[in-house]
């Protein structure tokens, strides 16, 4: 049990650290419009990598911090799996928009300039 407590404490510490980093990054964000130089295609900022990381961490915690007689700690595993599904769906939508932009919008690679 003490080992599990240490694990939970480390997990909580990681969540607090992540929240602090996100808060710091949000405060330091410049307020003007951020556009890449003409002709350079850069994907816009996204929360998806953080969402993926949280989802993976929850799923990992569900596998690691489990009671002896159970396959998973469902308290972590179910939200983790649900977040992975949400992340995947959002990623597909973002990739779809990216595809539209690349194929039909202004982009050097596509050779279709507007």
């Amino acid at each position: 049990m003490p080992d599990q407590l240490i694990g939970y404490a480390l997990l909580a510490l990681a969540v607090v650290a992540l929240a602090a980093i996100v808060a710091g990054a949000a405060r330091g964000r410049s307020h003007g419009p951020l556009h890449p130089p003409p002709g350079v295609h850069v994907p816009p900022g996204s929360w998806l990598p953080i969402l993926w990381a949280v989802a993976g961490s929850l799923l990992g915690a569900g596998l690691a911090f489990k009671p002896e007689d159970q396959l998973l700690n469902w308290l972590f595993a179910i939200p983790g799996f649900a977040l992975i599904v949400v992340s995947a769906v959002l990623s597909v939508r973002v990739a779809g928009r990216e595809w539209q932009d690349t194929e039909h919008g202004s982009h050097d690679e596509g050779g279709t300039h507007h």
Partner: protein
Amino acid sequence: MSAHAPAATPAPVRRQGGFPIPLVGMLLFISSEVMFFGGLFATYFSARASFAGEWGPPPPAPELEFFPLPIPITIILLISSFTMHFGVRAIARGNSGRMRLWLLVTLGLGILFLIGQVIDYTTLGFGISDGVYGTVFYTLTGFHGAHVFGGVVGLTILAVRAGAGQFSARNHVAVEAVSYYWHFVDVVWIALFTTLYVLG
């Protein structure tokens, strides 16, 4: 292009015949993964070298066997690398439908591997907390399984996007990137299988 304003002319993201930047990113990611698994293998061999007594599954668990599951799931994963390659070849020729088919086959094989690994876990007779061997065994195979799961998620996303017609012979860099990752996961399993089951 105006000769008076050369500074305003941007460099293209992907030059004709150049190496796509997303693939460079994937290769860098795989490089970091090589170091990650290198550390895990180092842990395994270090623990094995310094272990006092007979190295292997803690008694009364039986020795690791090739059958009924380890060899079949290894073959499944090997075949999945070929099916992934066929998918990349198909889209490179502009055949989106065939690529999707190969992606779904690869996805199915990946899921089969994961199911096989979970079933294998239930038959081993030792757990992650059963000594040093149990810890390193489950850490190595567990992290590999997590990577296969990541690949399965990636393949699912690719299959959905392929269904929406989002890949073409000219633009299929995501398929190539995931294929690199999948081949890497396959290679890691070969190394794991050799280390755990062949060398013992």
